[in-house]
Each structure stands twice: as C-alpha cells, then as structure tokens.
C-alpha cells in the first residue's frame, strides 16, 4: 500500500484518440495525478474531458499512448483496472424500478461481493449518503439530487482506489450541487482519491487540490488553483460600459476581442494600470458605468488560456 501511495494513481503518456477523420478528441495528453485528494479536469464542452475519462475507465481504447491507473496499464489488464475504480458518468445510471438498496446491492454483487456482504455494504453507503430512509423505495420516486447521490453511492460500493466522476453536478440545482460537493469532501477526508471533470470553475476552485485545464484535446495548464490564478498576474481590472461603447473601448485598451459582458484586462501593476486604462478611455470620451480592480478568479484564467468563456459564466453574466 505504501508503494502505491508514492506513485501517481493515474499516469498518462502522450495519449491520442481520434473519432473519424475530423475529430481529434485527445491530442497528446500527458498527465500525472497524485494518489491523494481531488484532481479536477477543467475544460469547455468538447475539450476531451469525457474521452480521457472513458480511456481511464477502460470504456474506450486510445489510438496511441499509454495510461496507467493504480500502476496498472489500462490496455494490458483492463479487468484489474476495473477492480480499482468507481465510475459515475454524466447521467445518473440508476435503475428506476429497482429500490435504492437493490441498485447498490446489484453493483456490490458485480464487484464480487457475496449477497450478504453486498447487503451490508449497501446499507452502510445508503447511511453515509443520507438515503437510508429512501432505501426501499424505487429510484423512480427519487428527486434529481437523490438520484445523483445514489449514482455516486453506486460508484463507491467497491471501495475504489480512484473514484472517477464525469461532470458530477451538471444539470442539478445549486442546493444539490452544494450537497454533492460536501459528499465529495467527506469522501476525500476518508482517504478516497477523486478525479472529476467539470465545466464549472467554482467547482474546481472549491473542491480540487490540483487542476488541469484541457482544451482541444491538450492539457494547456496544470497546477493548484492559486498557481493557475498567478498566470494572469496579481490583479485584473473589470470595466462595465454601455453596449454601444464596448467595441471602441476594447480598441482603446488594446484588447483584440470582446466577449459579451464586462471587459477584463490584466493589471500586473495594480492601481497604476487602472489609472492608465481610465485615462485611455477618457481621451476617447468613453465613460465606464462600473469599475473594479480585483484579484483574478479561475474564470479569468480560463478565458485567458482557452479563448472560451466557460458555459457557466456565460449563463450567469
């Protein structure tokens, strides 16, 4: 056990995968994930997150390159990898017409537990996930949040060395999202290593010890949340302008593109940069309706790195 803790739980070398001639889903991914805490794979839709997850979960064969989970090569011994992982996909794969307990007992049996062990493990996890009261109800009667929790519970039945969560909070409401976060944090406290994908910066920021930003099938940056934030310098300026003035203002400030919403520019020199920016706008007769000098968020990093505004930010702005 000690030996495994020293080596990364996931090691990926030059992993490539194409779908047909057009789509390059993974374009030479290198990654090492420490066997400890939460690792987030952050990227927009179509960046290659799910493809990478599917390779690691032995659901998809890569075209070239190698991947090891818990020291085991996914291509050479997928069966052994499956015994080490728990997977919760993008859609809660629970059976509507089985009860919560039956869903978990089934998964337990398929991990090789005896009927009695599966029953014990099932009730243990239902307790842990606050589903004990609903254990004997069909999953069909569960709320969206409960279904997601049951799905998460199913991925833990086999006590995986690595828990893989593909967009665990996509499509659920904020209250349930917070609940899933709390659960993940508790699992990590119990020693489970978690690899999750997300399009939500807030989620990566809140949960992850380390974050890899993936775009167009490549890892474009990796580090702790704070390290990533350093990439845009210590501060950014955020300017709010009337819609009609936005293009002119971007030109005056030397920004090449304008996303909808506020103008954001790096401010390595803090207040001096803010004053310079305001002067530049003033000479063109442009007047911001809102001005903010603040620390960068992962949002800004993401924008800087990928040229995409992440979906979550677009929706909220």
């Amino acid at each position, binding site marked *: 056990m000690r030996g495994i803790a020293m080596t990364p739980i996931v090691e990926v070398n030059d992993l490539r995968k194409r779908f047909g001639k057009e789509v390059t889903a993974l374009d030479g991914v290198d990654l090492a994930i420490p066997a400890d805490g939460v690792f987030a794979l952050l990227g927009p839709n179509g960046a290659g997150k799910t493809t990478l997850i599917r390779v690691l979960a032995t659901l998809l064969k890569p075209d070239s390159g190698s991947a090891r989970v818990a020291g085991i090569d996914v291509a050479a011994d997928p*069966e052994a990898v499956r015994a080490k992982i728990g997977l919760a996909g993008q859609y809660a794969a629970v059976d509507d017409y089985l009860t919560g307990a039956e869903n978990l007992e089934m998964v337990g049996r398929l991990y090789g537990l005896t009927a009695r*062990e599966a029953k014990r493990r099932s009730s243990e996890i239902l307790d842990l996930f606050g589903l004990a009261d609903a254990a004997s109800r069909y999953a069909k009667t569960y709320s969206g949040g409960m279904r997601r929790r049951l799905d998460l519970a199913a991925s833990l039945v086999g006590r995986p060395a690595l828990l893989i969560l593909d967009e665990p909070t996509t499509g659920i409401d904020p209250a349930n999202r917070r609940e899933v976060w709390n659960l993940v944090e508790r699992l990590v406290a119990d020693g489970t290593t978690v690899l999750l994908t997300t399009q939500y910066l807030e989620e990566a920021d809140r949960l992850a010890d380390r974050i890899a930003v993936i775009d167009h099938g490549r890892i474009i940056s990796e580090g702790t949340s704070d390290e990533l934030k350093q990439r845009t310098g210590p501060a950014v300026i955020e300017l709010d302008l009337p819609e009609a003035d936005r293009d002119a203002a971007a030109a005056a400030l030397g920004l090449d593109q304008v996303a909808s919403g506020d103008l954001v520019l790096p401010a390595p020199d803090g207040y001096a940069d803010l004053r310079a920016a305001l002067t530049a706008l003033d000479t063109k007769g442009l007047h911001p309706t809102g001005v903010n000098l603040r620390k960068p968020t992962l949002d800004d990093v993401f924008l800087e790195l990928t040229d995409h505004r992440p979906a979550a930010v677009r929706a909220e702005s």
Partner: protein
Amino acid sequence: MTAIAAPTNPSTGRLFTDTAVITRRNLRHTLRIPGVLPLSAVMPVIFILMFTYVFGGAVTGSLPPGAEDEYVNWLIPGLIAQFALFSGENTAAGMADDLQRGSVDRFRSLPMARLAVPAGRTIADLVRAVFTILVMLGVGALIGFRWQTSALEVLAAIGLALAFAFSIAWMMVTLGLLIRSAEAVQAAVYMLVFPLGFTSAVFVPVETMPAWLQTFAAHQPVTVVANALRGLMLGPDALPGGHTVGGDVLWTLGWSAGLILLFAPLAVRAYKRA
C-alpha cells in the same frame, strides 16, 4: 482491508453469478415497469383475432388435413413461431435503452464477466416469451384452437419455440448494441422481422405463393419453426408433403443453435465496444 474480491480473470463461477444478477435485474424491470408484461401480449392477441376472423374463411380450403379445416388450428402454432421473432424488438430496444441511460457504461466499468449483460438480457426475455406463448394458447383455445396431439408434444412445442426465441434474442441484443438508439432500433427491427414474418408459412401454406417466392418461403427459419410447431401440436398431417415432425424439429434446433453460435460472440464484441 476489506474483503473485496478483485479477480483479474473472472472464473466460470463469476460468469454464472454475474449473469444471474443481471437476469434478476432485467426480470424485475419486466415485472415492475407498468404495462411491459400485458403489452407484450397485445400484438399477438390482435394478430390472432384479426387473422382468424378476417382471413380465416378465405384460406381454410387450402389447408392441409392436419388443421381439421379450422384456420385457428393452423394459425396458432404459426403465430407462436412468428412472435418468437417479433418479440425480439423488445430485446433490442431494452439493450439500446441500457446503452442510452448509461447502464452499459456502468456495467462495463465493473470487474464483471463480459458475457453477463447480453446473456442476462436474453435469459430474462425468455420469461416474457413464456408469458406471451401462454396467452396466445389461452386466447387461441377460447376461439376454437384445439391441439391434436398429446400434452407432452405441446410442451415440447413450447420448449422449441423458446429455443428459437432465445436464439433470436441474441441477434436482437447485437442489433441493440450496434444501433444504440431505442427509436432507431424499433425501425430497424421491423424492417427485418416484418418481411421475414410474412413471407413464411405462418398465415398461408407456401404452396399458395408464386413459385419464385416458394423456395425462399419454404426454407426460411420462421417457416421451419412454424412447421415444427404444427407437427408437434397438430400431428404429421399438418406438414407439407415429404416433411416429418422429427425432421422439422431438428431443423429448428439447427437454426437456433446456428443463430446463437453466430450472434453470441458478436453480441459480446459489440458490448465490449459499446
């Protein structure tokens, strides 16, 4: 550490356990999802009533003596053969549904036997086939169907129909895994089963068809199975000239075994790549 078994090469015992677990899961779906079981008997019953009363009068004259001049006697064994084929639509759609809902992803990420998911589907659907066959025999009896042989031979006929249904189910599991969408699966399966079901001896004797169609219709599996079931339920007089009950039974078993040998490996292959 916990007592989690993590075999890198699942044993035969593992295959049986996993298949039993998946079969039980699918059976629970069949029994619990409202309408599944009753609805699987609706189409066969409609076919029985429609063909007996609409076509029965026109066809009776050309039936072999074993039918005792009752179209319903001729029709029921034939329709049982046809529905062994038609009920495959449920199998294919169920498999595609498991894919779409993410269940197949979950199963594939578990250290379980690769054969268990397709096998669990085909075995569970046999139970539905038993139900459908019993309903067909019951409704048939109500409107005048009388078998002309022993109960033992009728039981053998039911067993034979199930063997054929089981082999068709393997083909349908493969289709479901390859086509992936429950709606598209339905269209594809109908395209396959309707022509096969109707260019057979299920509804009319093959001799009434044009010569070019006769050769195909006389030898395709639905006709073979229909003949075998008629032989077992009505006696040798219900068979076309030159056929024996034993011969048609053997042909049916041959078709069933052949379909299973062909499609079981294909189903597992499609499952691994799903």
